[in-house]
């Protein structure tokens, strides 16, 4: 393998002004955590890299790591585009992220307990009651229900970005059924396979311990009187976009993957049908949304759920994770109150910043949004996966008018935020056969258990593969990178 000057991998890398580059500082010098990596990559050419990248890609196909996009006519499976050039996070920066994620998710859990019990935060006028009463995810069936260990959001996915000011901001709290952790683990496996020589030069925290920690913490929430709980993962089925992940997690935890029809309820206990007869199920990691969980309680025409499972849950005979009703806090309007929520329950300053948010439900702020729509991101409060997001400076005149009238017609449905400049990271672009700057974010994974918490040391760095694009979700054409969190 030869090294020619003009074919080295960063030879045509363009560093744009005003963007925060994760690898290069303002002067164009390599940041210290990346130095060793660049020294090693520096001896390689673009051709070498392409070779490696192709190998990694085929290994993804072979492992069946794919996802599906809703609304695609053919609904075909795609591989999640993966970039071999990793993102590296130093020990110190990670400490902030980890503490911040735990703080946020514990505060969210307090919030959930409160809104399903005393509702103090609403009576104290910190959070307006309308946010609850207009949320379809605020379940009356959960009023006064005490979930095991008082935990609602067992599993949370906190989306974090680094802004051009160099600070971390939280973009979203995903506490319904956050997905993506399987890609973290598969990215690591693929990277290690392709670049073992490079990986070996860093002391990086493992990510493959996620499943065992998840299982351990889920089992701390087992029902009373159960010694060795039987845990299952329930999936809506193979047509769900995250089916790969559901099956991966079940396999990695060593538990059964089931669909609704594989379970049944009798006398308020949940059983799994097996060839050896019914087996009692104690803990269900559910990847089905609340409203489809139990047709006896929620959406009556759902064929995905298990009839009677909610009654079993209310009786304490089975644990559902995340708890039903958790979705009320997974709402972009609630997000905007997070600094207040953290202060209210923990009496602490938020470790991770919130992006300033305008509520279209407030007349003054609505007017500001309508007047400044060009500089704002408009988001529906109740959509996941990056659907329905409009970025003001990317809209045509007609589109602006359309978005304006939609917002005016249904102000409660929308919030707006200043357009954040997500940091960029060198990313290999297939079509150009070179490295270019692309915007990235980071989805972190937090698991709450009885008196213990676990944050996966790593996370899913999502990359917007289209130049200049700020939306990183896989359903919107994003890719991913392995994320290395360094040991001290």
């Amino acid at each position: 393998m030869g090294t020619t000057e003009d074919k080295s991998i960063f030879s045509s890398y363009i560093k744009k002004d005003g963007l925060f580059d994760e690898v290069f500082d303002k002067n164009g010098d390599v940041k210290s955590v990346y130095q060793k990596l660049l020294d090693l990559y520096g001896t390689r050419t673009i051709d070498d890299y392409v070779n490696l990248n192709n190998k990694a890609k085929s290994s993804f196909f072979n492992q069946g790591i794919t996802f599906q996009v809703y609304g695609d006519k053919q609904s075909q499976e795609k591989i999640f585009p993966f970039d071999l050039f990793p993102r590296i996070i130093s020990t110190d920066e990670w400490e902030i992220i980890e503490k911040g994620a735990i703080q946020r998710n514990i505060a969210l859990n307090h919030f959930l307990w409160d809104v399903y019990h005393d509702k103090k935060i609403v009576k104290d006028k910190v959070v307006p009651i309308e946010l609850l009463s207009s949320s379809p995810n605020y379940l009356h069936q959960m009023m006064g229900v005490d979930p095991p260990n008082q935990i609602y959001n067992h599993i949370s996915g906190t989306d974090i970005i680094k802004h051009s000011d160099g600070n971390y901001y939280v973009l979203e709290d995903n506490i319904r059924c956050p997905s993506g952790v399987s890609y973290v683990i598969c990215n690591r496996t693929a990277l290690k396979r392709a670049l073992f020589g490079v990986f070996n030069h860093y002391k990086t925290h493992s990510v493959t311990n996620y499943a065992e920690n998840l299982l351990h913490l889920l089992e701390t929430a087992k029902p009373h009187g159960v010694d060795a709980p039987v845990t299952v993962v329930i999936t809506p089925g193979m047509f769900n976009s995250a089916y790969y992940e559901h099956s991966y997690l079940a396999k990695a935890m060593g538990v059964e993957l089931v669909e609704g029809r594989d379970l049944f309820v009798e006398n308020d206990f949940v059983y799994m049908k097996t060839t050896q007869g019914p087996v009692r199920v104690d803990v269900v990691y559910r990847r089905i949304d609340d409203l489809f969980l139990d047709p006896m309680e929620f959406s009556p025409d759902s064929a995905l759920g298990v009839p009677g499972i909610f009654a079993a849950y209310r009786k304490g005979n089975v644990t559902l994770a995340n708890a039903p009703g958790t979705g009320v806090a997974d709402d972009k309007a609630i997000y905007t109150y997070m600094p207040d929520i953290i202060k209210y329950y923990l009496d602490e300053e938020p470790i991770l910043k919130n992006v300033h948010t305008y509520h279209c439900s407030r007349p003054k702020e609505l007017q500001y949004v309508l007047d400044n729509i060009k500089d704002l991101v408009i988001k529906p409060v109740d959509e996941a996966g990056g659907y329905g997001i409009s970025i003001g400076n990317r809209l045509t005149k007609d589109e602006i008018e359309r978005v304006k009238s939609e917002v005016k017609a249904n102000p409660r449905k929308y919030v707006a935020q200043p357009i954040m400049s997500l940091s960029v990271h060198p990313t290999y672009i297939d079509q150009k056969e070179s490295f270019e700057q692309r915007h990235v974010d980071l989805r972190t994974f937090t698991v709450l258990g009885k008196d213990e918490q676990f944050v996966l040391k790593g996370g899913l760095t999502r990359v917007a593969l289209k130049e200049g694009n700020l939306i990183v979700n896989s359903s919107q054409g994003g890719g991913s990178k392995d994320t290395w969190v360094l040991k001290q």
Partner: protein
Amino acid sequence: MLYEYEIDYDTRNSYEMGLNEAFWQFLVIPEENDTQELTYWHFENDLDEKNSVSENGLGFKTVQVRSKKELDHIKFNAHFKLIKKEINPFDFDLPLDINEERKLVDSLDFRVDYEPYLRKTKFTQLLEEHKSIYAFDPKKSIFENLTELNHWAYGHLYFKTGVTDVNTSLDEIIENRHGVCQDFTHLFCAIAKHHGVPARYVSGYLHQGHGFFGDSQMHAWAEAFVPNVGWIGFDPTNNVLANHNHIKVCHGKDYIDCAPLKGVVYTLGKNETEYTVQVKASQQQ
């Protein structure tokens, strides 16, 4: 005075194509409360399957039947005996001051505490153009307003079976002005909520000795919350306050929370549901 009732709930559901797995849940057991005491209950199905008693998400007792047999129908019978206390619906002290009462209802704490029954649902949400269809009189107490609303709803709709079903929207009912007890009840609840008074849908049995509407079927009426008094039952289908003839099973935000039968059946083809209800006053003490 005490009344003793015997209640029979009979249903037969048939499935054109047959099925081999099903789950049914019956929400038909009378609630036990200050005025109702259940002295006997018995459940039967013709599938030879267990009838298990469970509780729904709002704490009301249900009967669940699960079957894994091949079948084309289920017959289910529930039989109850119940003692009901005489209720004098007017037997309470009205709150003294009308302004105080309004202030309380409008206060944040009240709106938070009663949020579940102030929340509008698909069946209790008034369209913009219907919001002024019935105005509360600010010079009258909430109880008086509710009584007049009860009377108004009774007059606004004509009782007619077969013209509405569980999917008929509230605005259709308001426009077409006819319906059955659940439509009267949704209308009452929607207007009460619109005026800031918590209201809930009640499902139950009506002893029809007095020529009331709602015979041979489950009945529906409303409960509205009057400050300092509590939940009071209003039966807009019959223009009365709920009394000893109203045997309550459960309440909820609307019909969806109270449907007497919910089922999950794995089959194609049509299914048919028929049911009858019989309420007998067996003895008066």
